[in-house]
């Protein structure tokens, strides 16, 4: 379950946000604090998660403190499903 979430989000980030389809994002790689995903794309990610998994991530939660890696994000999604 978690692996599926991670794979699908990693694919979305690489293809749609970074536009580098071949890029491999490891589950422990910092996404927000490293600047890999900027604040505008972060909203894309939130909307993608809402559409795909039916889990809402609030405006105040789109920060590195709530989640910074794919692992943390998947855990957050799983906990709200």
């Amino acid at each position, binding site marked *: 379950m978690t692996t599926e979430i991670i794979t699908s989000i990693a694919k979305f980030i690489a293809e749609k946000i970074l536009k580098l389809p071949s890029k491999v994002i490891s589950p422990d790689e910092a996404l927000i604090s490293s600047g890999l995903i900027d604040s*505008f794309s972060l909203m894309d990610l939130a909307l993608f998660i809402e559409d795909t998994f039916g889990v809402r991530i609030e405006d105040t939660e*789109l920060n590195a403190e709530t989640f910074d890696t794919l692992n943390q994000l998947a855990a957050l999604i799983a906990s709200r499903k």
Partner: protein
Amino acid sequence: MALENILILAAASLLWATTFRNHGRTWFMLIASVVVIFWLQPAVPIRGADFFTPLATLVLVVLTWFITADDATRKQRKNIIILLVIASVVLFLNLTRFLPADFQLLTPSRPPQLTTTLIIFLVTGLTLLVLSRLTRFSASFLTVSLLLTIGLFLLIKIPTLSLWLSSFLRTLSGQSLTNVSINDFRWLGFSYVAFRLIHTIRDKQSGRFPSVDVVEFITYVIFFPAFTAGPIDRLERFIKDLRAPFAGLNLENFYSAGQRLLLGLFKKFVIADALALIALNDSNATQVTSTFWMWVIVYAYAFQIYFDFSGYTDVALGIAQLLGIKLPENFASPYLKPNLTQFWNNWHMTLTQWFRAYFFNPITRWLRSWEKPMSIPMMILLTQVATMLLIGFWHGVTWNFTLWGLWHGLGLFIHNRWNDATKAKAAAWATTPAKQAALNISGILLTFHFVAIGWIFFALSSPVTSWQVILKLFRAH
């Protein structure tokens, strides 16, 4: 905060943490914070204003707590005792009026007559009583308090309105209007207080407000280490530290807090204050004629503002740590970031996070949800410029802060587009560590200079002088 204020507050915190440990720690923080907001408030020429502004802060904070708290917390008996204790502290400060002038150390000037203070207490008490009799709390109270906070904010930040406010207060205190000026009225810490209040009101509106009692709420909003210059913490994070058992200060914490405090004092009072001697300001901007020296004073300002502000943050974090509170970081080497987006992720971080959470994200979400959304570049332009303009206005609603906000809003937009267009090429080119380093270093230099030029608008008060400085920097004048 002046050096002596910082040293006294650090010593008091250290004394409390080592002597009483967890006994009454929250009470200590509350009462110290109440006293400190009176103590640090600068003296102003309007009679009584420097006493009534901190009092207004307290009233506003108590009222906001009252309408954001849940029913069970609001109805607790202990709230009355807590409010009476706070009122007694204020009354005590007011009574120092009768001491000889040499002993009126806790207020910026001689405190006013007791009558007005008592009337304010009475009106606040009656308001709370009326509000508590209402059987149902309507959501419109939250909207009203949100608008009230924003309104007060505008009153202080828009020069025309500030002047009007000064005239009004002068009339109220029976003073002459001949010398009225926008510098008559200063409300210390209000920018930060307002942002903490808006955060709690908005979170209550979206149903994510944690249940906190009045002591916790007031301590959060006016916590003395962070009162004058931030950081802007989040309520739920702050009360987690406040509620965690505090076993007193151990050696390890003492060292790390002390180190942070000393580092902050060094950055602020040695480096920043020395740089201030040569940093760009309204008078040297017109006096310096050579391009070289113009760059020197612009660089000096860029480093002064960083060391000043991040030094204050270190001081706040150090003092808070003595009391077992870990405030959030506000700066993470912002001048060493390779692009403007990253600069803003690491400069005054708690403010940018606040704007992201309560302005940028909601606006972006809303624009995204349109049936026929505008183009992505247009959306980015709009949201970035609007956010940076608001951050500019937060410092003051003037032409120069507007230009500074525009400069950064457009800069962020251009960086975003540039990054989008060149990312793949840059990644393909920078295949060796040397090439990556070259890219990184040129990014850092470019970003720093962009920010430094932006500071010209921030440091000076007129667009014309700012433009002349820029022309001189590029020898065009």
